[in-house]
């Protein structure tokens, strides 16, 4: 699970519309908005970067959303998973390749 703090940059007078778009996503929590009403602070809770990227792409397809900038990323569950051997970073290997025994 990834927790990512981000800023959504929006066009003028689109705050309400964008907030309602954002609220449709269960993976997004809307936290605050800047005084100039141009930037919205949100937090994503997603399974991984793939999902994050997918949602961001969707969001950027709205005319009212100019850009999404990420600032904070917490991935401690992923580390725990890697350490416990539950998650192996997916790596594609050469065929017929033996690992050196060290």
């Amino acid at each position, binding site marked *: *699970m990834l*927790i*990512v*703090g*981000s*800023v959504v*940059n929006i066009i003028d007078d689109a705050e309400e519309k964008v907030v309602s778009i954002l609220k449709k996503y269960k993976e997004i*929590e809307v*936290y*605050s908005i*800047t*005084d100039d009403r141009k*930037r919205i*602070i*949100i*937090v994503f*809770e997603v399974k*991984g*970067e*793939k999902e994050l*990227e997918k949602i961001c792409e969707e969001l950027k397809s709205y005319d009212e959303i*100019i*850009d999404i*900038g*990420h*600032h*904070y*990323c*917490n*991935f*401690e*569950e*992923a*580390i*725990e998973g*890697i*350490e416990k051997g539950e998650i*192996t*970073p*997916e*790596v*594609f*290997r*050469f*065929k017929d*390749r*033996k*690992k*050196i025994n*060290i």
Partner: protein
Amino acid sequence: MNISRRQFIKASAAAATAAAIGVSAPKKSYAEGGVDKWVKGACRFCGTGCGVYVGVKDGKVVSIKGNPKAKTNFGFLCVKGFLAYKVMNHPDRLKYPMIRQADGKFKRASWDEALDYVASKFKYFHEKYGKDSVAYYGSGQCLTEESYTFNKLWKGGFGSNMVEGNPRLCMASAVGGYISTFGSDEPVGSYADIEQANCIFLVGSNTSECHPIIFRRIMRRKLDNPGVKIIVCEPRKTNTAKIADLWLPVDPGTDLAVFHSMAREIIKNNWVDRAFIEQNTRVTDGKNTYSFEKYAEFVEQFDPESVEKLTRCPAENIRKAAEWFATSGASMTLWTMGLNQRTRGVWANNLIHNLHLITGNICKPGADSFSLTGQPNACGGVRETGSLAHLLPGTKPVTNDKWRAHVEKEWGIAPGTINPKPGFHTMKMFDSLGGEDDPNKPIKAMLTSTTNPAQSLPNLNKYVKGMKDAFLVVIDIFPTRTTQLADVVLPAAFIYEKGGVFGCSERRSQLTEKCVEPPFEAKPDIWIAAQIAKRMGLEKLIPWNMDDSMKANEMAWTEYTRVTKDTDHTLYGATYDRLKREPAGIQWPCPSVDHPGTYKRYVRGMDPMFDHEGFLAKFGKQIPKDAKVYFYMDGKNEGRANIWLRPYKEAAEVPDAQYPFYLTTGRVIEQWHTGTMTMRIPEIARAHPNGYVEIHPADASKYNIVTGDMVLVESRRGKSVLPAVVTKTSMPGILFVPWHDQAFDRMINFVCNDAVDPGSKEPEFKIAAVRIQRVSGPVKIEDKVVITDINSAYS
């Protein structure tokens, strides 16, 4: 992670993000985010130099956030920046030193065994074949302290200038351009000029993909100020062109004519800044100086219509670009490899500088001629510490008697130890590398650190045998194409496992403190360098051989800043203590601990060197009291920058009947260089899992090629078979291939040209003449290829 902890982290993420854009934090949040400590540092990837905070919990890196106080990224990161943790925790990490045995297989060794072996081989070659028989090949990804240490060990210890680094392959032309125009390397201004520029000229830089945070700043500038003009000059219409007001499409290498033509239009329309030209510049061809009228006469031949025929860039676009550039009031050019990786890279850099000089678009807010760096520490580490065959610390030439004597004194070595003759540049170095039994190969051994030449050199076929035959020691964190040719592999610590300084494109040095311990037996490079030195009787020269990497780094840094004190590149005021405290790092020149660092050079009141007695005395400079702008490193001591008369010259190889296409190579956003790290991050690898060749629909239909077909791309040097992507991104006649794929058949560097720029010795990666042939329809190819088996063969 339980729910309350998750809620807590989410609140912290919101608070930190809010704080990053200057909004007060929601009440329930705490900026600490449930980690034991936040450690300040820099991003490991591109040369933007984004500031990060690394969150550590129970001795593990669990979080990364942008540093809101960093003047490079103001708190934001791109996906590469915060996925660095996956690299650190990857199971493919090299864990132990390994030595290749007689049967060709590697065997695990202890550090003592491996280091003793390396030192004994180096000693043997030195004694038998002379001091230049062992070479060092470093990287713009090494820390400044590491580059400095290896450079000192070679030049001061072995008395050999056989020291090179991969910035020769990416930045050397920019260095040549800055030095030949302004007298001193690296940009005049800073990224901060982006927010003040009214016209931004992007040349040979796919900024949106290769420097995403810089692109974000450019984009914000444009969105907030729609009147700002963005001009993109590229053979390809990349993502970067999305925000452009004007695209200048050009055949690879022909942009020299476009720049000359812009200069012609500027002069014709009297958009020049006469006062700036008269006070601060001279026109030269390198031998003689001329009047500005001579320059005007010279560029007259480049009328836009003729240039359009030569370059395919519409004359109208050239005229418009010239007008916007010259009349905006503040124009900034940014470029990367598209300008540098050429046999006329230095000239291309000079011509961009020309445009700035003739319009006075330099040395004032928003106006600058700015080379972006591809690697995180090509500027700070390799250029500034002089870790190239012809340089000494402070980017001063080894041929300079006075500077050699100065460095020898500072290093406490006998006068005459440093060789006055430059070593071999990268391509010559690899061409001279080979086995003991080959009398034509004078370099018998090489130590490489944090780079992958067996994939990254152009015209690879020519150089692989030498690497294989020679005694090759590789320091890295993962198996690579180069470890496949190595005799000894030494596992390295990652930046957050050792700490140290990176200096980014805008002359800014930032310290990363060690966050966690390296995995298994991986060690910092600085420790490896010092241990080799110790075994070769050079312990006095490299005394920082302790296990504490931050202590060793600090000793190396302190010495480096002392050696380069009172130079135009001084970081003497950037002590380690201060770097630990400064949230945004420090830009040189920074001559004293009370100096804030320099935003813009060569401007009185901004640049401390105008009044720095030590510098003026050491370099015999006299700056007139009334000079507001003064290019004080001018070789002629007149304080002037050079407007260069550079003739038009085409690329080393241009398409002909036999090889009718231009091939150009580059990067994509997700992959970083040879994919050693990024290809191991699945979310990243997924986006561009393999190399491919972009073909324009017009060419594709001529050759009966559709997207997915396998296509042979062949030059006079080598071939590659890649899936086709039919797209209008490039112009007809131009093919593009990214170079991150490690699969042997798709390694495009076999095809690239190794012809070098005579000025910078940088090879022409960006331009080769090739032919294509459809090989088959779509086939299932192996993708996301990385070298995982240390014993695998180079094939």
